[in-house]
Structures are given as structure tokens and as C-alpha cells.
């Protein structure tokens, strides 16, 4: 049963959710850019621009406290954050390249150890995806197996239709429940002719071929060729919906402090540096190789998935113009 949702009603939906005490996170304009942020009103929703950062921070914050400690009178008290206090969240207006990522990450966060910080947030979050109608020359979701209207990862999915508004599709129980709860806002019928989808001008990549090439080319001059120019920042990893490396630091003093988990990036010189000061990935090309290997080989080997959704953020914001799509094309050519 096709239902539609007008833009106004979408805003009303946000307002209604907020009223219920649900945290609603969606693309929001702040200053010169759009980022995913908690909304305070439905009208804040900004659907025309891909947010600068991915939506992964909803589940995997840039920095979070994972325990705190205090030493007093010869005793040390350690307290964990109360994860029951993580808010119910609706993540709204998420493009397919962002929506697909959390699902891919479930694998690593629940592999040998269930990471409660990630999984609890996943449990409490409903994702409302939206089909993508615009792209630029950095977009390449279609090359890595997604599409501008991929449902992967969404609980509820919106497809922009002619004349404004969206065709709505509930994809699972979470989605249906949300839809049911606010059934009044969803109307039956109306124009359901979808707007033309975005068309990234890229050819699909043979990800298996690439994996195979990577398997045999750990030591290849290509890595140096590409990554000698890498400046060693974390922009690519931090904007990426799928990058999930983190570091743990203790902050505070001897008497009291916090243990914090925060994003790490393979671009950083101190990435995987050992306490001995030895670093197995000593130079930039080795670290960049790890980036490609992780995304297109290791994760595939281990979990059968690719750690890239083709959002193109790393291409747009690489300070030295490294273009992962061009790198993949190059590998594609070689294999």
C-alpha cells in the first residue's frame, strides 16, 4: 500500500517525534555547511545537500567517555556510563550512501566483542533513508554496488516524488512501527511518480577483481605513487561513513579522570604506533595501503562486505586531491 508524505508533513513528523521526547537527528544547516545534528524543529531539515560529515557519528561519536575513575582515601572507584540513558533516536533524511554504512559496521562491532556503545545506539535508532536525486563528479555509489535509491540500512525509506513530497516505504518492523505511530501524517495516493534519480557518471567496479589484485600486491609501487603526496591528516577517515578506527585515551589526572574513545585515522603518523615507538606502518604509503586494503580486501575477507559506500566525501575534501575513485580505477585497470 503506497503512502505518501508531503514535505510539510515530514516537518510535522519531526516535530511530533520531538514532542514525544525522541531525539531527531537530520541534515541541518549550520553556518556555511550542512551536518547531521539534532533538530529542534522540523523545518530545520535540509535535504538538498549531502551533509559534510556522514551519519556514522549517531552511532559512533567522534569522542565519548567510556569510563571515569576517581581515587579517594586509598580506594579507586570506576564508573561506567549508564547506557540506558542513551536517547531514543530517529535519524532522518539519510542518503543511501550514509544509510548503508551502519549496517556494514554492525559486523565489526559485534564480531568477537559486542561493543555496547555502538550496538546500544543502533538498537535505539530508527533510520529514515531518502533516495538521492543529485550527485557530483565525486559521487560513485553505483561503482561500489549501491544505487541512489538503495534501501540498504533504512528502516523507513522516502522517495522524492514529482510535485514535492515523498513516497514512503516501511522496510522493517522499526519502520512500520514509526509509520503506524504517526499514521495520520501519511496519506494514501497522491502523486507517486518519483523524481529522476541521481546518476553518478561512473562505471561499476569489479570489487572481487580488485580484492584479488590487492591480495597479490601488498608491495606495489602504486602505493608510493599515490600516497607520497598524502599529507597525513584524518579528513578522509573522519568524513567517511564506514571508517571506524578509534583510539582510547585517558584524560585527567592521577586522582580522577576519564577514559575516552575517539576517532582515529590511518592517515595519522601515530596510527598503530606501538608503545615501543615502533610503527609497522611507518610511512604514508603504507598507511594509505592499509586504507584501501581495509576497505576492499580485509573487510571483504572477514565479513564479506565492502567498507565503502561511494559517498565521495574523501575525494571532495582530501587536502592533496587524492581520489579513491581514481585509485580504484587504476587497480581495476591493472587486474
Amino acid at each position: 500500500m503506497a503512502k505518501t508524505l508531503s514535505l510539510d508533513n515530514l516537518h510535522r513528523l519531526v516535530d511530533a517525534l520531538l514532542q514525544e521526547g525522541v531525539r531527531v537527528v537530520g541534515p541541518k544547516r549550520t553556518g556555511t555547511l550542512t551536518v547531521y545534528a539534532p533538530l529542534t524543529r522540523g523545518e530545520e531539515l535540509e535535504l538538498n545537500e549531502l551533509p559534510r560529515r556522514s551519519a556514522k557519528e549517531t552511532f559512533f561519536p567522534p569522542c565519548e567517555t567510556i569510563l571515569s575513575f576517581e581515587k579517594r582515601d586509598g580506594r579507586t572507584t570506576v564508573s561506567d556510563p549508564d547506557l540506558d540513558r542513551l536517547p531514543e533516536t530517529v535519524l532522518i533524511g539519510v542518503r543511501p550512501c550514509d544509510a548503508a554504512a551502519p549496517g556494514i559496521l554492525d559486523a565489526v562491532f559485534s564480531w568477537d566483542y559486542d561493543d555496547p556503545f555502538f550496538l546500544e545506539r543502533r538498537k535505539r535508532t530508527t533510520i529514515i533513508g531518502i533516495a538521492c536525486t543529485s550527485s557530483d563528479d565525486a559521487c560513485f555509489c553505483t561503482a561500489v554496488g549501491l544505487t541512489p535509491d538503495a534501501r540498504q540500512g533504512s528502516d523507513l525509506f522516502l522517495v522524492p516524488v514529482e510535485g514535492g513530497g515523498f513516497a514512503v516505504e516501511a522496510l522493517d518492523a522499526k519502520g512500520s512501527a514509526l509509520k503506524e505511530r504517526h499514521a495520520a501524517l501519511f496519506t494514501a495516493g497522491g502523486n507517486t511518480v518519483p523524481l529522476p534519480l541521481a546518476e553518478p557518471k561512473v562505471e561499476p567496479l569489479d570489487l572481487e577483481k580488485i580484492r584479488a589484485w590487492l591480495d597479490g600486491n601488498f608491495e606495489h609501487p602504486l602505493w608510493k605513487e599515490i600516497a607520497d603526496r598524502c599529507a597525513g591528516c584524518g579528513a578522509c577517515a573522519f568524513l567517511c561513513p564506514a571508517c571506524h578506527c578509534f583510539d582510547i585515551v585517558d584524560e585527567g589526572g592521577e586522582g580522577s579522570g576519564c577514559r575516552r574513545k575517539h576517532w582515529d585515522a590511518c592517515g595519522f603518523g601515530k596510527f598503530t604506533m606501538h608503545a615501543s615507538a615502533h610503527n609497522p606502518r611507518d610511512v604514508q604509503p603504507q598507511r594509505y595501503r592499509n586504507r584501501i586494503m581495509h576497505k576492499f580486501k580485509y573487510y571483504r575477507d572477514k565479513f564479506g562486505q565492502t567498507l565503502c559506500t561511494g559517498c565521495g566525501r574523501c575525494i571532495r575534501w582530501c587536502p592533496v586531491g587524492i581520489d579513491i575513485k581514481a585509485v580504484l580505477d587504476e587497480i581495476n585497470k591493472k587486474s
Partner: protein
Amino acid sequence: MTATATTTKHDFEPKLVAFVCTWCTYAGADLAGTSRMQYPSNVRVVKFPCTGRIDPVFILRAFQKGADGVLVSGCHPGDCHYMAGNFHARRRFAAFRQLLDFVGVDLKRLQFSWVSAAEGGKWVEVVTELTERVREMGPMREFIDLDASEHWSAELADAELKAAYHSL
């Protein structure tokens, strides 16, 4: 000898840190002591060999760790035990205070002075003045609030907890 310090209690007693050089200002503060001069007890002194050793980061850190006011004091120009340490410090702090001002730190909370080993009175005057000024201004919330704030994604959205956090 001024033994007339009033013991009025105030609603707010600021925390002040003084970064001083050992040869002039520390000795000047000692002189204030041996002369039994009286001044507010709000200041905590951190001793350095020379103002040249004082890193702007310390000032920043002091504010971050809860100082309501910071005093940096050393030898008068030309009197530096190490010849030129205070000259370098003078430039460094001239620049640093402009930077703090530019990011919005009220410079009334940051005082620089030259206090020689003979100027016990000046030490008292500088400390008293800064204490009174900062007491008037109230607590420095900026860095404390900053320290308490998290990226939205890391917040445990709970009113009760928030209230508890802010009461810290």
C-alpha cells in the same frame, strides 16, 4: 605595615594563579611577607626560574583548570637574572594576550606585571587589585562550560544527569 585587611566574606572568592620568576617577583612576594603586608589569600603561586620559561600554554591550562584570573610577573626590563628572558616573555605575552582577546577571553582576567625583589608593596597592590577585579567579574565560566560540553552524539540526554554535571 598594613594590618587592616578586612575579613569581609564575599559571595564569590576567585581562584587566582600567579606565574612568577624566582629572582624578582617571588622574592618580592617574600618581602611582602617579611614586611607583614596583608593581601587577599586567593592567589596560588607557581615559581619559575624566569618569565622566559613561562609558556602561554600554562596560562591557557590554568584557565581551563578553573582559574578565574591569572597573574604573570617577573623582573623589570633590564633586571633579568638571565639577561633577556623577560624581554622574550614580554613579546610572547604581548602576542598571546591579543590572541586570547581575539578568541573572546576577557583580558581583565589576565594581568602582567614587573615586580622586583624590592617591591613587596607592588606585589600586594597587584594581587589585591586583580583579586578585587576578578571577584567583581564573577567566576570564569567560559572554559568550565567548555569542559563540560560534549559533541551531541556523545551526550547522554538526561536532564537529571545534566543537572548533576553542571553542579560539579
